[in-house]
């Protein structure tokens, strides 16, 4: 019987044909169009480069288009009641941003959990989105924040809300051979709003999450009802998960422990992550989803109390 397994060989060398450093977005997009799918966008590179070491056909890339030299793409600013991040904002920048720590702490916190300090210095928040993983430390908070991304190609720009962004594991609305995600925007968490981010890992640094849960709440003036909430979780499926029906349940809900517990049970019932040898069994992760949603809602509410003076 012939061998049907192709043993993966690891090498030290990566295969890249050409490396292009465009000076402007226009230059980058035109070049991508010219290359007709044979070039790929790279920003920080922390996902792409290790992937190129594996010696299978997918490993080879003709040309990399490095967008990190394009000016004016690493901004974090507030405009027209939205916070906007340029696509070259690194996780280090995001975790140190006073604006984010004040008005979108869950994103700053998420950015702080990614990889290691070295990784955070070069990996971009946009890149984390484009990698299309179901449990990105910044993508889950961005999903909870109802973020919208702007995608540019040589044909123009389009806006895609994150609810429509994730297609499958490793696949998003962005085609890195033609398109560049240029910015991310979302409404800040203002007065009356709070957020929480919880993470479960097997060790305290450089650990892929077993579960990440981001929650935002908005409460009424009396602070006895949740006006609206968002709950985002991963990895509980191939893409980040929004617990829509539970969010509906929480609209105008009275704040008490049984509401919170019911919400938590509800979310757990909606999740069916597969059994994973490395990330935990389905049953455990469902239980943890319950714990995280319960703790997360309470912590988000506490954050509201902290911001309302």
């Amino acid at each position, binding site marked *: 019987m012939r061998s049907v397994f192709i043993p993966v060989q690891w090498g030290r060398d990566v295969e890249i044909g050409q490396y292009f450093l465009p000076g402007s977005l226009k230059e980058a997009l035109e070049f991508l169009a010219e290359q007709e799918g044979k070039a790929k966008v790279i920003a920080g590179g922390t996902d792409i480069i290790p992937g190129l070491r594996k010696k299978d056909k997918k490993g080879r890339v003709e040309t990399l288009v490095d967008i990190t030299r394009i000016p004016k793409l690493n901004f974090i600013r507030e405009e027209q009641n939205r916070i906007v991040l340029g696509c070259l904002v690194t996780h280090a920048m995001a975790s140190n941003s006073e604006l984010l720590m004040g008005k979108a702490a869950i994103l700053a916190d998420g950015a702080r959990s990614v990889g290691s300090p*070295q*990784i955070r210095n070069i990996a971009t928040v946009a890149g984390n989105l484009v990698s299309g993983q179901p449990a990105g430390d910044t993508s889950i908070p961005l999903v909870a924040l109802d973020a919208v991304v702007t995608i540019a190609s040589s044909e123009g720009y389009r806006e895609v809300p994150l609810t429509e962004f994730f297609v499958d594991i490793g696949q998003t609305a962005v085609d890195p051979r033609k398109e560049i995600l240029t910015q991310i925007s979302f409404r800040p968490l203002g007065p009356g709003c709070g957020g929480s981010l919880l993470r479960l890992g097997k060790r305290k640094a450089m650990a892929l999450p077993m579960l990440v849960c981001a929650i935002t709440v908005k409460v009424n003036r009396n602070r006895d009802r949740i006006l609206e909430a968002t709950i985002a979780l991963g990895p509980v499926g191939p893409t980040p998960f929004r617990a829509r029906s539970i969010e509906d349940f929480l609209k105008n809900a009275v704040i008490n422990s049984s509401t919170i517990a019911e919400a938590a049970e509800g979310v757990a019932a909606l999740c069916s992550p597969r059994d994973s040898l490395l990330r935990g069994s389905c049953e455990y992760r469902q239980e943890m989803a319950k714990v995280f949603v319960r703790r997360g809602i309470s912590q988000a509410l506490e954050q509201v109390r902290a911001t309302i003076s």
Partner: protein
Amino acid sequence: MKMFCLSFKLNGKSVQLSVQPAKLLVDLLREDLRLTGTKIGCREGECGACTVLVDGQPVNSCLIPAVKVHGREVLTIEGLEREDGVLDIIQESFISEGAIQCGFCTGGMILNAKALLDRRQEPDESEIRHALSGVLCRCTGYRKIIQAVKTASRIRKEGRGNKG
């Protein structure tokens, strides 16, 4: 395959050379430039042994195409020692505290510590731990490494005080 004309500053000196696009920074340093102080432990950014400073920021050189440092300043562990052989305070502290066993993670630890102490004068233990959280050590249990950074921080502070 198109070669790239790379020009950058390495340990204070200008370097120009022609590189293949596929050349990673760690391999450029170790093979082309014969600076083997930067180590390779995993080639996927998980161990931190390949840390170098680019414009003062620690990065994993195993993940960076060499082209990315065009126009930038790179510091490797070899660049810490002064021309006359006098060691950096952090290096001395690692020696005096016994913070080195097999030495493979030492470069990564020292450079991450330098980046920390350059931006933060007296970090507390939690800040030190977080700053070094991207370098794995299998030998020391980390305790003497943390102690060495504390010692270096104290000596640097006292040194600064003396100048004033």
